[in-house]
């Protein structure tokens, strides 16, 4: 029983991170019908920038809370700038191009960002400095630590904040209008370019936070960490129904928990035939099963071709 509980806690932490990254995919997809494969790289850059700032501030002997706050802030600003530039330079001119062109551009941007990061930070692992004091708490013999609680709480706050922004503000209203129909929204006096730029900036800010959360959780960052993470988060977004914000959150949490439980029980369930090395296979198997019965994802609406 405590194993199941522990696996759920592991999955919840992993899932919160997936969810935040998945939101970035789903935001952009909702508005542009573009799968921004460079999003994983923005997460990685967030982690790298945050860690560099953190190291500088530690050398200046600041105390813990301002260090975390300032490095998070600078990472967010850095990623927002990068997100804006990606859209402005790589995607804007291709907005009316056939679907494949921006998709391939996205993969290109991802490779470029990865190589830039490799040139700046090298092929070495960048280590998260051990400044956050970690306390352990036990629930029925399962362990959870303060860092994991922090990650879950921060994710929930960001998800609620985003929901509020989209549902209850004028800006959110404009975003939803743009998502529904770009041309009509423009006729209603919405500046489409601003809204699209803002969407990228918003997604990148979330990515920066996710990047630092990953770095803190695993204790390291690496120039190619964004690829797998991006792939998993994209899977989560598809699982929940890409384009749907609640779907991305649900998909992220579900994927995290499925992976953890899959890795934990696969070996026992199959009598050792399939080991924990099949944890990813198991996650994708669940994804395929869901897509067979509900092709638009768990919460996605079936959408026809956009005019």
């Amino acid at each position, binding site marked *: 029983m405590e*194993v199941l509980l522990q696996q759920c806690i592991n999955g919840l932490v992993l899932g919160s991170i997936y969810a935040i990254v998945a939101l970035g995919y789903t935001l952009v997809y909702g508005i542009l019908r573009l799968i921004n494969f460079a999003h994983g790289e923005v997460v990685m850059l967030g982690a790298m920038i945050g860690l560099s700032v953190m190291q500088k501030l530690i050398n200046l002997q600041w105390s813990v809370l301002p260090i975390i706050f300032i490095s998070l802030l600078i990472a967010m600003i850095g990623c927002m700038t990068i997100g804006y530039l990606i859209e402005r330079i790589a995607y804007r001119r291709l907005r009316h191009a056939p679907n494949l062109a921006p998709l391939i551009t996205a993969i290109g941007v991802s490779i470029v960002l990865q190589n830039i990061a490799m040139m700046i930070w090298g092929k070495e692992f960048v280590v998260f400095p051990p400044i956050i004091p970690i306390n352990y708490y036990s629930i029925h013999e399962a*362990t959870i630590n303060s860092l994991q609680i922090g990650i879950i709480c921060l994710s929930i706050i960001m998800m609620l904040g985003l929901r509020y922004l989209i549902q209850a503000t004028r800006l959110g209203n404009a975003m939803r209008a743009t998502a529904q129909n770009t041309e009509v929204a423009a006729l209603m006096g919405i500046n489409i370019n601003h809204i699209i730029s803002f969407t990228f900036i918003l997604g990148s800010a979330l990515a920066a936070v996710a990047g630092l959360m990953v770095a803190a959780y695993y204790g390291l960052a690496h120039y190619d960490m964004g690829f797998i993470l991006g792939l998993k988060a994209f899977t989560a977004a598809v699982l929940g129904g890409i384009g749907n914000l609640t779907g991305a959150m649900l998909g992220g949490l579900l994927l995290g928990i499925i992976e953890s439980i899959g890795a934990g029980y696969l070996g026992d369930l199959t009598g050792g035939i399939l080991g*924990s090395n099949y944890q990813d296979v198991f996650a994708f198997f669940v994804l395929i099963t869901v897509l067979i019965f509900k092709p638009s994802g768990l919460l996605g609406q079936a959408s026809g071709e956009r005019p």
Partner: protein
Amino acid sequence: MNKKYGYLSLILLAMNGVASLTFAAELAVKIGIAGPLTGPQALLGKDNENGARLAIDEMNAVGVTIAGQKAKFELISEDDQADPRTATIVAQKFADQQINGVIGHLNSGATIPASKIYHDAGIAQISPSATATAYTAQGYNTAFRLMTNDSQQGLALAQYVTKQLKAKQIAIIDDRTAYGQGLADEFEKDAKAAGATIVAREYTHDKAVDFTAVLTALKSKKPQVVFFAGMSPQSGPMARQFANLQVKAQFVSADGTRTPEFIKLAGAAAEGVIASAPGVVLEQTPEGKVFINKFNVKYGVIQNYAAYAYESTLTLIEAMKAAQSIEPAKYLPFLAKIQRHGAIGEIAFDAKGDIQKGKVTIYQVKQGHWVALN
């Protein structure tokens, strides 16, 4: 014009004849060394080359007589880029030059494909650093190595864990690479033979960073020791998550983990982790210390395998002396039966060409540094 040059060339030819007459008493011995001299492992390749060069210079200075002639050893260094394909090109080049013996290669991946070419050409080969069991398992009478192989390392680890740590319940994780899987299999076999129970055999891959699910599954089986066969980019985060999940077991790993990088990645969780490395600690023996001093004077700090390259070269030359021949066909039987003592301890080969009683050193992280335990 033509005539003039004709005379000149005649004179040169004559001079050449005189020159070869004077050196006729010298026997040119060509020894090849192959390893990566470019790329990320270039430092290690150069280190091996320096080790071999030190041996050659010493032997030339002392003077070795083979079959009544004074031997003049020459080192021919080639770059295999740690690449299996380039390694075969280098090997073919050595075979075409009819080289008298080869020290190399550095990596198992390069050594194994090259060994077939050396075997077909009948050239003796001593690898200073390849550890994959497969290298000497091919049954070539030309393949030797001084470095402890992976099965010897697996055995030493299993013995340490069962005897020293007295572990009865062991969990094993490997990274599914040729290295990790091979080592984990050896370890599992030897640990079972020593009476331990394998409570879990889990897997990960060499790009993974999240091991919480696997470790949670292990934790419930209550192992006393968790053995991981893989490299430090995985073992570092794994050690952290091990501590986070409060798994009450000893974390043990092998040479892929015994790196400064592991300590950096695992942070505070590195403390107390045990890992093995093939080979001896040079600092612990007087012969080893002598070698370190000699090497430092000439080439600076030892990177890793220089002493092994040095001893490989000396072993090869020793076999030539014993056979009184520089032809591999003649000295190979002597090489197989060689008994000598060097900077790395006793050197003798078993039937397969592996070093007998290959040494494995067990290390533990103490105050942020790897400290040898035995």
